[in-house]
């Protein structure tokens, strides 16, 4: 067992993946000498050399597009997008190439590419540094999408994503990079594409992923004080979705609230609401409620606390759900 920050767990996971498989190559802006603006790749270039940890020119389409070529040559590229808001120059390569080449080639050209994206707000940054673009990827057939919420998952899920034969967009909750926890570096991890009940409860099922898991757990804690028992599910996988534990839970609680930072309209909550409303139709005592970012441009940082879902907004939704 080691005590690691989420950032260090990712760093350790990357190191492990590189040791395990010489085909793993890291590419990104400032990931070499600097170790990445969040230091997630710290020390890796020094230890694995410039051929395996590549400081690239400043162009995201170039990063992802050359990763496609490397994958075709049998490599396993792990690319870092510096911030969520800078993934869009690479969007064409991701949506029209990375996501489609397996199908186009009927499996002759697998695309074992991992696209790491620090996401979400709450760090007081300027424009484009606080966004939650996960739905853009979860809506894209051919990609798989996960989001981690804690150091242990970060450590394991990153290794699993890198080893996985399909492209995985890997979301890292940047404001939780400094959160610490015990990580068992040898334990066998749960499957990559599975969600997990992280707190049991009976009254309302609360879903979250990435940075909002902590918020959801805090809300559950606070609710308990008021005599309300919330079951919290960490979704972990956004595409494919693993809703079996959620449905099992909702059939018991009859109520469901989904939380994410992304804007509410067409965010993950929409899909989850649609599915759960259908699969648990007869169990639901209230509609599935969503707590997301407002449908506005991500605001300047002085307003982000008001923009982002927090404990109070989650509890307010729980109240509304109970009130139906």
């Amino acid at each position, binding site marked *: 067992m080691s005590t690691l920050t989420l950032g260090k767990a990712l760093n350790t996971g990357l190191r492990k993946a590189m040791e395990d498989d010489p085909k793993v190559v890291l590419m990104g802006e400032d990931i070499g000498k600097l170790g990445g603006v969040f230091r997630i790749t710290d020390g890796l270039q020094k230890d694995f050399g410039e051929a395996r940890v590549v400081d690239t020119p400043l162009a995201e*389409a*170039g990063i992802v597009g050359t990763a*496609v070529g490397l994958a075709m040559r049998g490599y396993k590229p792990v690319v870092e997008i510096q911030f969520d808001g800078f993934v869009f120059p690479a969007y064409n390569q991701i949506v029209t190439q990375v996501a489609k080449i397996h199908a186009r080639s009927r499996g002759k050209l697998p695309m074992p590419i991992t696209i790491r994206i620090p996401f979400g707000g709450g760090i007081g940054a300027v424009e484009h540094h606080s966004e939650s673009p996960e739905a853009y990827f979860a809506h894209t057939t051919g990609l798989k999408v996960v989001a981690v919420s804690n150091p242990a998952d970060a450590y394991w899920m990153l290794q699993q994503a890198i080893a996985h034969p399909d492209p995985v967009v890997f979301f890292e909750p940047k404001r939780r990079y400094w959160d610490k926890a015990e990580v068992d570096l040898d334990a066998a991890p749960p499957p990559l594409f599975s969600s997990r009940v992280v707190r049991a409860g009976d009254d309302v099922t609360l879903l979250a992923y990435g940075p909002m898991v902590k918020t959801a757990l805090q809300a559950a804690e606070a609710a308990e004080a008021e005599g309300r028992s919330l079951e919290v599910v960490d979704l972990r996988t956004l595409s494919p979705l693993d809703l079996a534990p959620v449905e099992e839970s909702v059939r018991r609680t009859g109520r469901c609230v989904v939380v994410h930072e992304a804007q509410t309209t067409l965010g993950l909550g929409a899909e989850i609401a649609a599915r759960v409303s259908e699969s648990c139709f007869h169990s639901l005592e209230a509609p599935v409620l969503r707590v997301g970012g407002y449908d506005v441009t991500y605001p300047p940082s002085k307003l982000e606390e008001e923009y982002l879902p927090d404990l109070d907004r989650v509890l307010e939704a729980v109240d509304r759900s109970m009130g139906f």
Partner: protein
Amino acid sequence: MTAVREMVDPVPGAAAPHLPAQPDLVQLLTPEGERVEHPEYSLDVTDEELRSLYRDLALVRRWDVEATALQRQGELGIWASLQGQEAAQIGAGRALGEADMAFPTYREHGVAWTRGVDPLDVISLFRGNDLGGWDPVATRFNLYTVVIGAQCLHATGYAMGIQRDTADAAAIAFLGDGATSQGEVNEAFIWAATFDAPVVFFCQNNQYAISVPIERQSKVPLFQRAAGFGFPGVRVDGNDVLAVLAVTRAALARAREGSGPTFIEAFTYRMGAHTTSDDPTRYRLADELEEWKLRDPIARLKAHLSRSGKADAEFFAGVDAEGDELAARIRKGTLEMPDPAGTEMFDHVYAEQTEEIAAQRAAFLAYQEGFEK
């Protein structure tokens, strides 16, 4: 703001005295079929090689003609003709070594041919049976890429892989003149230069991107683009299979040697429509086509072979007969091609199938069976 279309002499000396000369154009065979020397690019070819190059040129044209006919008859959804570009494609394709990897656009049927791809596998794509069609790993000929320019980055990344493998190989990316305007293509130039990647950018400047003339993409000759990125660019007569072969070989050798990328502009002309859906009379004059017909890449090699006595009437008749056989095989194969099964679409989305898609597949099958009852 209006751009007056100024024609550049595509092939100096070829019946276009009003056009300026192109001193930079590499040529080894004149439009009249005369073999000429070039100070920088030489080529040793046996007579047999020459004949086999001719055969390739003629057969891919025959294939192209047949595919166009099949499309007209409703057997293909669309067809992108390579007519006029055979020499560029066969020259480049034949320059490739076995270990090299090619990244085509959607028009490189000639290159496909040189890589041993079955024409029916290409047809299958245009018929709508398949998104790919052939085995890109076994043939070392990547699948067609429809999104303009995207393959240039793939080729560059692949070349970076070659570097890491310290393999004696190179990658070649094909692109059109229009594609040079895509940001991703220019990023590929930057990557290739920065990492000295063993990649060749082979641009067929066929003068048009659908209806848009090359002047709209670049006001200076395209091959000059490369220098600003720090690697050499060269313009070759794309209707001269020998010159293309020589120039591409040199560029590939340079790449394999570790000296980095080269940009080749093969100056040529799309004799047909952009695709069978296109109507070129809306945007270009018949005159232009007539001028280019005088520079036909196949007639040129034929003239050389005949005049020099390197091939006789029997040889040409043999190739024609082979062409007819090929066409018949293509026709028969197309008509007999079975439709894909509906479940196919569920089976290759991922290497590791998801439960979601498996469930949709099952529902699809049940739904289909409901109809059959």
